């Protein structure tokens, strides 16, 4: 790309940064998060690196602007920056929306709770309090005493039977980067599925969950 002699080194730097696959990784994380019914593990390193990358891209664009580089070039860089920004924002946003939706479930399930970043945990804490207060004020406080829990239907319930949970048996579309061989869906009685590289499959999320978590398979 022609960008004038003066900032050749910046371009080199930029190219080398772009060639690391952080943006691609972010895209994958984002896609998985979008498609999975439950919340996935927060990739704090990746987010950290993406933010550094974004900052660097911003600086580059600013520098280009200052040095009067061809506007078309600048706008291409700007567009790339905007796209990366979108990915990051949308990734964080999708997670927050899941937290909002399943806040009680996430809060009482240690496994899910540990998947959140520290700040997300704070957010979830706040969310849960807000929602609980709201439910209590509008409904629960007006009901008879044995029926006032926001997690249980009544004092007679043995465990929390009124917490919305994500539907883990929902079907998701997924694709593997490499051949994984025969894979047994856990419903039993069914033929194992042969997972080929780069083929699309629609499978219940529950059965491929371990593959998603270990990064062997990507959701689309």
């Amino acid at each position, binding site marked *: 790309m022609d960008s004038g002699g003066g900032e050749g080194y910046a371009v080199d730097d930029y190219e080398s940064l772009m060639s690391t696959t952080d943006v691609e990784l972010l895209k994958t994380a984002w896609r998985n998060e979008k498609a999975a019914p439950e919340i996935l593990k927060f990739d704090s390193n990746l987010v950290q690196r993406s933010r550094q990358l974004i900052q660097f891209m911003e600086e580059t664009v600013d520098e280009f602007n200052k040095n009067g580089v061809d506007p078309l070039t600048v706008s291409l860089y700007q567009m790339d920056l*905007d796209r990366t920004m979108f990915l990051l924002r949308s990734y*964080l946003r999708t997670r927050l929306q899941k937290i909002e939706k399943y806040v009680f479930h996430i809060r009482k399930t240690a496994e899910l709770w540990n998947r959140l970043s520290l700040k997300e945990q*704070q957010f979830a804490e*706040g969310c849960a309090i807000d929602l609980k207060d*709201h439910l209590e004020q*509008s409904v629960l406080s007006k009901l008879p005493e044995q029926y006032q829990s*926001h997690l249980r239907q*009544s004092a007679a319930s043995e465990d929390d039977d009124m917490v919305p949970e994500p539907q883990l048996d929902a079907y998701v579309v997924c694709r593997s980067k490499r051949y994984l061989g025969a894979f047994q869906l856990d419903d039993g009685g069914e033929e194992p599925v042969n997972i080929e590289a780069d083929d699309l499959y629609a499978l219940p999320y529950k059965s491929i969950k371990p593959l998603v978590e270990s990064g062997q398979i990507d959701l689309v």
Partner: protein
Amino acid sequence: MYGRKATELVKEFASSEPGQLSTFNNDVFAQVLEECNGHLLHLEPLMMNIQENENKLRDKRSEEEMGMSEDERGNSEAEKMLIQSAIKSDQFGALIHHLSLLRNKRCLMAYVYNRAEVIRNLGWMVDSVLPEEIEEKLSGTEKEYFKKHANTLQSYMAEVDLHLTVDMVPPKDPYIKVRVLDDIGEVVLSDQVANLARHAIMFLRRTDAEQYITQGQMEELTS
């Protein structure tokens, strides 16, 4: 019929457009709550009856163990049967009231919970200020909830130092063409100072324009 009012609430929510809110149905809501308390009023004496009868039954048994004549034994058998059937009928009555109460609770909760979800989604779109025509549809606690939740969200965004309510759609072009719908006046945007007068058609940075678009002060022109 028990539980019919509560169904109305849920039906009302289910039949409204997804993502849209209708006015909070205070009237039916209060009626269902009343019904719940009515159930409790029925429930409590029934539970007490059951308790009493069970005690009586226990007394009878201990009397029997003390020993009694054939005649007395026959009488006591009959009495026991009577008490038992009284317990049974009270139990079924109590169960009906208990289950109706549960059902009403679930309906009320579903109504409030699902509305809360819509309200939260609005929070993503309008950035902490609700338009008036929506606000008047909410109940008092719902307004409160919206504010609190918006604050929680704001503090998260402040923590991560990233504004999350912009960029809702994937960007195609850094600049978009917009028409200004309201007299906004002179504003400092990220790359220029612009005079946003009504009906002006401008070329703005997407991130700048987005906040105005969500507030309905601008519209995007797609060619």
